[in-house]
């Protein structure tokens, strides 16, 4: 294993940028047009240099090609996605770590795409640590927003559940609970179902005799 890692280091130091380019193009080869491949290569290299995950960009290019979208539209979408990753990375940095991990950045971009704001992303990242990962929290929040729960309610619900001492399973279960609230209620909107869950979480947190977990954010 140490030999393998040494090999990797040598290959990277020796190959330099060429290695990076080879690999992105290997993943795009046969799945996108040469024109799109060249554009995405440039965008991916720049994104990687900024510490952003490159995989979502590659996926988006492949998706656009599979859907028969014209090349310039694909490039525009990949560029827009890189922009969302940038915004997500900045929003996460404001919550704490100087170098947010790529999982969290990708999840943040997902949340932004689903309709949350960068301020929402920062707030969600802040309430996550240390008991929950930013990535997991943001994925759930993005999914709630994608279900039609308004941004403010999404943040409120996730925050309340975490503040009430919710475990990772409780947070992950939120989209299913909102769905259940909508299908069991009559004319209940996702927003209303989410508000109900948030109230229940707040009530649990304030129940007498229940030791409230100390908030961990500044």
């Amino acid at each position, binding site marked *: 294993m140490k030999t393998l890692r040494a090999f990797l280091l040598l290959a990277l130091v020796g190959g330099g940028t060429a290695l990076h380019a080879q690999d992105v193009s290997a993943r795009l080869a046969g799945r996108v047009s040469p024109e799109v491949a060249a554009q995405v290569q440039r965008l991916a290299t720049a994104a990687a240099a900024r510490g952003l995950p490159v995989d979502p960009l590659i996926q988006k290019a492949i998706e656009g090609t599979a859907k028969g979208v014209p090349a310039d539209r694909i490039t525009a979408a990949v560029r827009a996605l890189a922009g969302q990753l940038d915004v997500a990375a900045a929003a996460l940095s404001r919550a704490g770590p100087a170098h947010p991990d790529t999982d969290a950045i990708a999840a943040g971009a997902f949340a932004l795409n689903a309709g949350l704001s960068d301020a929402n992303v920062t707030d969600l990242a802040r309430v996550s*640590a*240390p008991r929950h990962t930013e990535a997991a929290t943001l994925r759930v929040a993005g999914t709630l927003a994608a279900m039609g729960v308004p941004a403010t309610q999404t943040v409120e619900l996730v925050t309340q559940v975490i503040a009430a001492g919710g475990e990772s399973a409780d947070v992950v279960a939120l989209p299913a609970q909102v769905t259940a609230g909508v299908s069991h209620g009559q004319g209940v909107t996702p927003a209303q179902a989410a508000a109900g869950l948030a109230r229940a979480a707040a009530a649990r947190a304030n129940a007498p005799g229940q030791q409230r977990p100390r908030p961990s954010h500044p």
Partner: protein
Amino acid sequence: MSGPGGTTDGQAVRAILAGDTERYGELVTRYRDRYARYAARMLGSRDAAEDAVQDAFVRAYDQLAQCRDPDNFVGWFFLILRNRCFAERRKSKEVVPLEAAGAVASAERAEVPVEADEQRRALQHALLELTAEQREVFVLKHVEGLSYSEIAERLKTSVPSLKMRMHRAYDRLREQLRDRT
């Protein structure tokens, strides 16, 4: 918490943040195995536990500036490792974890009678069927030997809610072990 020579964790952390990064080695050596067993019982695999501990130390290094109480580095490190253990979700009902647990058990204790070994593996497998939170309270109390109030302090929760979680765990373990015999 301090090591030989009397350096406290707080001193080491502050020195590292001031630029003396080599001193991170003191913290790694001091706590390398501290939560190894916790990670192994939580993940059901020694290999996965080693990866988790390694990742946690690297992450702790990256985020050292966020450690708000440098004198309690180990408590903060535990939460990072815990996060990492919880991130491994097990949804599949494959036999896989049993073999992993078995590989750990038989490689390290050849003298143990076969039946006791089987029971140990069965319990580890049953533990992996619990939720991460249930498994954790069981591991902290019955493997690591902490009291309920020590666990409550560490996880920032209440003793009653821990007991409720644990009692559900006891019932689920009983159910799992009965199914297997």
